[in-house]
């Protein structure tokens, strides 16, 4: 649905009032009785008086925050409060990459949050990739609210032409201050034999909301390798739907989360084997400390004629204390008979034998736990095939572990 077509929806009033005052959409968010949102309540979000991003409410961001990954040769694309910032972005993207920053385009996502995005997103960013040897793209989305809570709705479309190959890294970060709500929608279309590597890191401010919707369609012989890291935010959901549209396509969709304090993180995935002969694998691992809440909902759908589908899914989580909650809901809907499907889910605590082994070598319990948590999450991060990105993600996890130690009064 295109933004201008949404006028009939309840959010249409929002579209009409796009640059108006207080958000009129809060009453239309999914509630706890909506199955897909059962574990991720939006009460706090709905009761926050967000205003749309506008120049008057923006904090002036003139430089990039620290701690962003350095990806050799990557072309930078920067959004501040959802708006493209030419001054912070690269101008040249190199051969084969077309980036346009003021596009209205449709998204296939139909969720309330995607519609909300359509209602508000004034303009989207479109990345079209063709050919080989393309520069990687590093998309940086910065949330920076001024005096009032701020809502913004980044809209992104990525197309990869037949046999082309693209790598995109996304960093979603925020500046401390007033709360903000980032509601990105990303539409990805991979043509025949196209391949995409997409690495998303969400490390928002501890007061921020981030509800991301991604839809990916993959044509015959296409391949996706995606990794999503969730390191914080008051309420974060990364919802990713993958749909195979042609035979011989493959998707590796992986992720990790590390939560402390009152952080909430939700991975919701849909793997739609709509055609025969496709492979999908998912590995998600998470750790939860404090009073945090981790959610994994993973649906695998294999259509009736999708023979020789191979679909695998694994979610493993560790409780680091007694306070957190972890909900895991795998859903397998398999209508074909010649398929390989496997799913696993395990939630537990740090293994006492592992802990004793490290302590018996003189490593103090806090350091031993940190090593084990890092190792546990590393098991997922090693799925990232780009060494720079893998190293950055492991560093980010180490930084998270250190901040947790500091919070507990350890040097």
């Amino acid at each position, binding site marked *: 649905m295109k933004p201008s077509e949404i006028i009939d929806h309840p959010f249409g009033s929002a579209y009409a009032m796009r640059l108006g005052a207080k958000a009129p959409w809060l009453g239309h968010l999914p509630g706890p009785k909506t199955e897909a949102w059962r574990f991720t309540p939006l009460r706090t979000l709905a009761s926050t008086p967000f205003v749309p991003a506008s120049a008057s409410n923006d904090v002036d961001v003139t430089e990039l925050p620290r701690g962003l990954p350095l990806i050799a040769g990557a072309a930078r694309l920067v959004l501040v409060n959802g708006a493209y910032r030419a001054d912070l972005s690269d101008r040249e993207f190199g051969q084969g990459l077309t980036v346009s920053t003021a596009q209205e385009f449709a998204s296939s996502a139909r969720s309330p949050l995607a519609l909300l995005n359509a209602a508000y997103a004034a303009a989207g960013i479109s990345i079209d990739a063709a050919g080989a040897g393309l520069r990687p793209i590093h998309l940086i989305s910065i949330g920076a609210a001024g005096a009032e809570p701020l809502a913004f709705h980044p809209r992104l479309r990525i197309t990869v032409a037949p046999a082309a190959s693209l790598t995109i890294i996304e960093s979603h970060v925020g500046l401390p201050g007033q709360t903000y709500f980032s509601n990105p929608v990303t539409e990805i279309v991979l043509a025949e034999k196209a391949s995409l590597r997409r690495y998303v890191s969400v490390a928002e401010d501890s007061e921020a909301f981030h509800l991301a919707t991604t839809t990916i369609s993959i044509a015959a012989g296409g391949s996706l390798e995606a990794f999503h890291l969730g390191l914080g935010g008051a309420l974060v959901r990364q919802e990713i739907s993958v749909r195979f549209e042609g035979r011989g396509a493959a998707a590796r969709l992986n992720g990790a989360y590390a939560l402390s304090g009152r952080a909430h993180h939700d991975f919701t995935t849909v793997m739609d084997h709509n055609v025969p002969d496709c492979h999908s694998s998912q590995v998600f691992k998470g750790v939860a400390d404090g009073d945090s809440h981790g959610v994994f909902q993973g649906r695998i759908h294999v259509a009736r004629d999708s023979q020789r589908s191979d679909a695998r899914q694994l979610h493993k989580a560790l409780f680091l204390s007694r306070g957190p909650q972890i909900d895991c809901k795998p859903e397998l809907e398999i209508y074909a008979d010649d398929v390989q499907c496997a799913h696993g889910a395990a939630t537990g605590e740090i*293994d*006492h*034998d*592992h802990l*004793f*082994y*490290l*302590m*018996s*070598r*003189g*490593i*103090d*319990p806090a*350091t*031993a736990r940190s*090593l*084990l948590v*890092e*190792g*546990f*999450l*590393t*098991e997922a991060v*090693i799925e990232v095939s780009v060494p720079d990105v893998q190293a950055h993600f492991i560093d980010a996890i180490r930084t998270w572990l250190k901040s947790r130690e500091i919070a507990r009064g350890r040097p």
Partner: protein
Amino acid sequence: MALLEIKNLHASVAGKAILKGITLALEPGTVHAIMGPNGTGKSTLSNVIAGREGYDVTEGEVLLDGKNVLAMSADERARAGIFLAFQYPVEIPGVTTSAFLKTALNAKRRAEGKTEVDAMEFLKLVKAKTAALGMPYDMIKRALNVGFSGGEKKRAEVLQMTLLEPRLAILDETDSGLDIDALKVVSEGVNSLRAPDRAFLVITHYQRLLDYIVPDHVHVLAHGRIAASGGKELAVELEAEGYAKYLDAAA
């Protein structure tokens, strides 16, 4: 003063008494072997000394250089110089052997008031030690013990021992699962560590290991007590005659 003194040690697991009064003194520079059939408390003894949770010491003392070991946590004991070579070293996915070794080595060095080794010094040190044990250096890049063969795991235990240079090394059934070549390599590694200021407690089921790591004293553990003590010839006798007479006598 003895390096390790165990005085009238009683310990139980889940309310069941396993050790029923063990008294043992290890002088610096000596190797003591503890032999005995399965289920007599050999592993309990090593776990109690190393500080594993789940064991209740109901009576007695364990002193390392005169200090009360039982009041220390497992990591404090290790930094004080106790090293347990595990019968079944655990596999820890995601944690590289090198990160683990460096963390352990620097924890020990900090406790001794020494400066930490940096990455270069560490690699140089590990290169020398792995070469001496006939281990491929690349093994330290692998996840800790993951996918290691039985022999590789035991070599990795000895590698850790040579890096951490303990005061007291406890070898818990180090010979189990080893073929004869691996047994030789592991034994040579242990023998190279024999030193006037270090003691070994070698726990084993079979005499075979003691052909390579020759003990100064041999003790027979039966029903949670030391049923007999002697020199290395006692091990040979046990190999020939079995444990039956000690089990009957202690029962």
